[in-house]
């Protein structure tokens, strides 16, 4: 579809074509003025389409009066836009009331939603001004969900919230989305938010041109051009790590040693091992520490090793956080443990960089072919 404003020389959104899969979060991301908000607003026709069409489930959005169409789409905006003169409950009930729901049904739905966004029931009778910004935006989301619309339009919904609360509310929304599986069109200018929230990301450049439409991992591994690469940022390797868990990559085998073991045995194990240090573990394979040269100079492995095993990495932890821990550690190696604390392998800087390099190569050899392109 295309949007050209009256009197403008160029299109605000030019020939943009996207297919958003049902139940997915599609993020429109790009620098300011790239037309991402305009594109989103064409979906609920708060901005009219100049040419082209938008279909939802095979029906054109122009087939019905805009007001009717919009009642079937959740709408969340950065400024939140709660009605200051209506209580929280009344705000949430906005669309149900427009749809003529009964009082009982509406009240039940409001109560259900307040629970869903984990706000105490007693906020129902308060006014928006009495809530914090984060709470207000939760209400904004609840209001958008009130009539259970299949489609949600979210325009920088968490942009005005402080970083700590933003993180929290993003996680909440992702948890919620895992349950409710709405088809979400999510606009942001923040690539980190896009990567975090998106099942698929459409990177737009000035004039609403689609620069790339891909999953977050694809976007980070194989930016389509310099613009996307630039936009994704120089730290895209780190961003990829943020999408993965420690268990997603192949770890080095840990040269394990047990207290009282013959040090000759341990030294033999170290020959040809990727890790130049042996890790002392207890009977349950829980790491006790690294053995130093001095430790190994003795005949038997000592009870207490010279070097602390910290940091211990959780195999379910985010890879990026693990990398951060590694960089701060003395050894640049760290034992990875499972939920019970038992050692499952060793993570090192080399493991991570090898992994990034190999994945990079793999993607360049086999570019994802099944991208719904525009």
């Amino acid at each position, binding site marked *: 579809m295309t949007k050209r404003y009256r009197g403008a020389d160029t299109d605000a959104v030019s020939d943009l074509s996207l297919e958003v899969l049902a139940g997915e979060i599609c993020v429109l991301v790009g620098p300011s003025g790239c037309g991402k908000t305009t594109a989103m607003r064409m979906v609920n026709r708060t901005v009219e389409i100049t040419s082209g069409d938008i279909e939802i489930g095979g029906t054109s959005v122009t087939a019905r009066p805009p007001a009717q169409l919009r009642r079937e789409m959740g709408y969340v905006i950065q400024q*939140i836009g709660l009605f200051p003169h209506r209580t929280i409950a009344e705000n949430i009930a906005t669309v149900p009331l427009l749809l003529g729901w009964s009082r009982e049904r509406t009240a039940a739905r409001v109560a259900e939603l307040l629970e869903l966004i984990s706000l105490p029931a007693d906020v129902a009778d308060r006014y928006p001004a009495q809530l914090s910004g984060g709470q207000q935006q939760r209400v904004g989301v609840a209001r958008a969900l009130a009539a259970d619309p299949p489609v949600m339009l979210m325009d920088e919904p968490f942009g005005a919230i402080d970083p700590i609360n933003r993180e929290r509310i993003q996680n909440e929304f992702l948890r919620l989305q895992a349950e409710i599986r709405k088809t979400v069109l999510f606009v942001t200018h923040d690539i980190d938010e896009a990567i975090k929230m998106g099942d698929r990301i459409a990177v737009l450049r000035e004039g609403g041109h689609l620069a790339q439409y891909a999953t977050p991992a694809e976007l980070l591994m194989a930016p389509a051009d310099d613009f996307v690469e630039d936009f994704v940022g120089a730290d895209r390797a780190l961003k990829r790590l943020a999408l993965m868990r420690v268990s997603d990559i192949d770890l080095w085998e840990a040269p394990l040693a047990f207290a009282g073991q013959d040090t000759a045995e341990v030294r033999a194990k170290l020959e040809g091992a990727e890790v130049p240090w042996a890790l002392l573990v207890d009977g349950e394979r829980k790491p006790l520490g690294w053995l130093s040269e001095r430790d190994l100079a003795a005949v038997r492995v000592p009870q207490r090793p010279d070097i602390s095993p910290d940091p211990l990495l959780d195999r379910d932890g985010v890879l990026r956080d693990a990398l951060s821990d590694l960089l701060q550690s003395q050894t640049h190696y760290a034992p990875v443990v499972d939920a019970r604390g038992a050692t499952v392998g060793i993570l090192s800087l080399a493991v991570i960089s090898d992994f990034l390099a190999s994945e990079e190569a793999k993607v360049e050899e086999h570019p994802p072919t099944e991208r719904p392109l525009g």
Partner: protein
Amino acid sequence: MLGFVLPLLAQVQIREAGSGATTCEGKNDAFCPGFVIDNINDYVSPFLEHIVLVLASVLAGFVVAMVLAIVSHGRRWLIPVFIGTTGVLYTIPSIALFLLLLPITGRGTVTALIALSLYNLQIIYRNANAGLANVPDAAKDAGRGMGMTDRQLLWQVEIPLAVPEIIAGIRIATVSTVAIATLAIFAGAGGLGEILYNEGIQRDVFKTNIVFGSVLAVALAISFDGLLVLAQRFIAPWRKVRAL
């Protein structure tokens, strides 16, 4: 013009101010409570007339102002037209306006009400207009985006959000009308002017009536204002307000 006013004044009821120079009212002291108590019945009907003048003219001004505000809401070019027109009406001195209306509507309450309503029109229209203009864009965007029609947006979001400003306009209009309505006497419409201007213009100022008439006017203004504040707390509980 004066020749036109004097016959009007001649119609004003002239009250005996007192008989001898020995009484309080005879000496025309600052305030004679005894005189007021003795003649309290004479103050009742001017006071009630005044209340009616204020209420009726504020109500009329409010209704017309709201109609104008809603009409000009979707047609922004009308706003300067309405502000200009009502503004010009507002600048006409009240006695002059009474006299201008006399040949058309004659002497009496109707003339006074028309003039007073025209003044209220300007104040309330400006406020209603500002109230509608100050509705946060985010609330309008959200309302529209959730599927409100223009009419639903107006009645469910914009007007309710403009209520505090509209009531602020009504408060200003009411208080100033309490004062201006004392001149309704010159249109032959009674009111507190009957007490204030009784004899005063023709002879010595009768201080007791000036003081008591003023007290009644101020009391009325404060009471109306208090009632309006209460009304706002009831209609717009989401917005805190203070009385005069």
